[in-house]
């Protein structure tokens, strides 16, 4: 009955008190996950049938699991942080703990300043106006990464698992910044990687009956022609024009990519395959979960192979098939769940132009999903991919390892795309110098306060990392005062080292995102003066 104990409107100073508590509680739940010696968080099982708690070390997932806090006022602050971290996790894949501790440090210091008479709106404006300067300062300290050894070191600093780092670093050396790295659960107990040649899709044969006898549900075809359409082929007679055109073109093996195929149509193909030694046909489903995916897959496959797709929406019919509709690939494989193409014979100049268009789109779009889709398409068209198989002794261990590998993969994409800055919080610490100069040069009290708040807050991630590793942050900070900016404290070894040289780095884009998200959210939260609880949650959905 908590809802009824909370007034509908909450005013200052109760708003700040509640927001502080909510932000603090949420951030405290995620704080242990920051750094190379981070701890985990155990969460009650979601399903009552599960007996073991869920062990998490991913700030984004932890935030997602915290659905609400008991006190509705405090919950407001917590949910503000939650929504930010979930978005951060979805957009960037990582950086949630850094964002959380930054946000908390800025908000707490901001509240103190406002309580002492500062102007919240002005403070917000000055905090937000510092974001571009901070992002520039980060960029000035950034550098590009390349080469297997450097990539391995960077991966190691991101996942703190040497075996995983070796495999991920090696994989990224192969696939590059857009490449396709699949991460899958394995039945084995260790990590392993598999190189896959060519382009493949998660879409298999329309029927197991099409596989040759004794082939273990796999078909490999050389120098195969490719036909693509987005029709459902329901009547076997619809295939006649396709097969006739293939015969006219002298095709000896054909892959039909179609939305679906009836049993009768499949029977026609199996009959053909059993009777014809000189002409084999395989059919797979057009890849993609939705119309957009399917259209894009058709476009990509047609560019790869040189096939001209027949599109239902364009009024095409199978009766119009000619020999010119067929594309070709050097090698094709099909199994129950996937099919792949190697050495497509499409026009390479068109394919390169297509890749350049996708790359431009990737770098200019602000839509996260569209960007990811573009990256996957680029990666898939590069001619190869790597699959990392993640094993372990228990399901929990496998799930944790897989989650870690996925976050590392995402961070590696960002690191390769935008470069890296010294890690362990040192990249953020190095930005303080730029702010200190700006603080000195301004006469505006609120502006100076904003800079000072940020100067202090930028140390929060590093302090948290040191604290999580069992060191006294003040002591470490004092030692660092006399070191060069590139020097940082390695929380694992307890030594002062050159972070960049040792491969302890953070992605520039990730750090810029952390800074932007933390400051803008904290600045917004500082200007909240009233909380309004619109209804009693217990009443929602109850019958009258």
């Amino acid at each position: 009955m908590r809802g009824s104990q909370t007034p509908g409107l909450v005013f200052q100073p109760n708003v700040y008190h509640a927001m502080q508590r909510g932000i603090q509680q949420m951030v405290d739940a995620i704080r242990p996950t920051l750094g190379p010696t981070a701890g985990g968080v155990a969460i009650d099982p979601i399903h009552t049938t599960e007996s073991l708690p869920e062990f998490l070390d991913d700030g984004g997932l932890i935030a997602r699991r915290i659905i609400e806090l008991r006190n509705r006022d405090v919950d407001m602050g917590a949910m503000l942080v939650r929504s930010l971290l979930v978005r951060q996790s979805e957009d960037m894949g990582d950086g949630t703990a850094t964002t959380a501790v930054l946000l908390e440090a800025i908000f707490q210091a901001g509240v103190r300043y406002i309580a002492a008479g500062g102007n919240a709106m002005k403070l917000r404006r000055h905090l937000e106006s510092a974001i571009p300067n901070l992002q520039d300062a980060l960029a000035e300290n950034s550098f590009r990464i390349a080469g297997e050894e450097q990539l391995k070191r960077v991966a190691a600093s991101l996942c703190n698992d040497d075996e995983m780092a070796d495999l991920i670093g090696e994989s990224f050396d192969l696939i590059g910044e857009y490449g396709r790295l699949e991460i899958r659960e394995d039945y084995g107990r260790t990590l392993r990687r598999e190189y896959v040649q060519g382009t493949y899709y998660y879409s298999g044969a329309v029927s197991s009956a099409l596989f040759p006898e004794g082939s273990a549900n796999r078909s490999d075809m050389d120098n195969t022609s490719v036909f693509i359409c987005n029709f459902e082929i329901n009547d076997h007679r619809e295939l006649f024009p396709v097969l006739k055109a293939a015969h006219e073109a002298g095709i000896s093996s054909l892959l039909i990519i179609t939305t679906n195929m009836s049993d009768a149509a499949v029977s026609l193909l199996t009959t053909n395959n059993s009777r014809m030694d000189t002409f084999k046909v395989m059919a797979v489903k057009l890849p993609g979960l939705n119309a957009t995916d399917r259209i894009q897959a058709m476009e990509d496959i047609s560019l790869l192979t040189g096939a001209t797709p027949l599109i239902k929406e364009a009024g095409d019919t199978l009766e119009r098939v000619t020999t010119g509709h067929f594309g070709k690939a050097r090698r094709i494989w099909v199994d129950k769940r996937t099919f792949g193409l190697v050495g497509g014979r499409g026009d390479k100049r068109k394919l390169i132009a297509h890749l350049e268009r996708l790359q431009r789109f990737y770098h200019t779009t602000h839509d996260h999903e569209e960007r990811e889709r573009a990256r996957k398409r680029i990666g898939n068209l590069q001619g190869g991919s790597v699959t990392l198989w993640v094993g372990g002794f228990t399901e929990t261990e496998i799930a944790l390892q897989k989650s870690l590998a996925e976050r590392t993969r995402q961070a590696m994409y960002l690191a390769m795309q935008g470069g890296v800055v010294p890690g362990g919080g040192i990249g953020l610490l190095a930005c303080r110098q730029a702010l200190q100069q700006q603080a000195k040069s301004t006469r505006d009290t609120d502006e100076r306060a904003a800079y000072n708040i940020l100067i202090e807050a930028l140390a929060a991630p590093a302090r948290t990392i040191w604290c999580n590793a069992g060191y006294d942050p003040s002591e470490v900070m004092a030692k660092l005062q006399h070191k060069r900016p590139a020097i940082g404290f390695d929380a694992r070894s307890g030594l002062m080292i050159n972070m960049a040289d040792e491969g302890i780095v953070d992605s520039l884009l990730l750090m810029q995102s952390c800074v932007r998200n933390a400051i803008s959210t904290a600045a917004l939260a500082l200007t909240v003066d009233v909380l309004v609880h619109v209804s009693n949650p217990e009443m929602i959905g109850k019958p009258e």
Partner: protein
Amino acid sequence: MMANERIDVGVVYALASSEAGRLYAARATGLYGSDDNGASWQLVPVADVANYVATAVATSGNTVFAGTHGAIMRSEDDGQSWSLIGLAKPAPLVTALALSPTFDAAGVAVAGTAEDGVFVTGDGGLTWVPWNYGLIDLDVHAVAISPNFSGDQTIFAATETGLYRSANGGRSWQRLVLSTGQAPWLALAFFDGTLLVGSENGDLLQSDDLGESWQAVDLGQWQGKAINQIVAMDAVYVLAEDALLRLGPDLTEATRVEAFLQQTPLAMLPRPGGVIVGFAEGDLMAFNL
């Protein structure tokens, strides 16, 4: 300059010489060897293989590699005995071979193919693995390995639609964006650390920084003629479609050494005092320089 030898036995795709001085010619009718500096050529018997086409040849010391359809032939005793190493199916046609400068120690070599990209060996040619990450165009015409390969791990592949560079020993490739567009690149060579590339359109480019930046080489009146091969000797020699050209020391001035009016030269090999040129029409001719 004058031709002093002529044999007409199939298209000559490539030429090479071993440390002991034996010359090899990869031809449409097989691999030929010459022990008399090109005066006479004999078909090299390769294991039990008969009627094969040899499309590429490269040597290091007394180790000889020759490319054919679906396989690479390997000899460690200057062509006395051969082993045949099959490549992954469908059978690729080997179009180019290059051995690393430290091949004897590291065993790294690269083979370009007509439709299947690049195959790399790291064990002296006993096994060849296709590594084509990023190689959008698998139609490879030429390959070249950096003179400082042990340090920079850099390999170049010239393809039908562009030039590709690998900075990790041929395991993955990056397309280089050149001002000349997506021309078919046919020839690659290193001269004193400078990379030279020649295209079917007659563009000749040089790079002093492993492909990071490029400068065009002006071939004067021979600009626009397909460049089939580039060979670095005391100077750079460019085998254009109708002439053999020599570049000046600073790679700026081209002078014609020999004109080919009736035949298309495809391959060239330095020899004492001159070069041997192989033609599409099947001739092998020696020229004094």
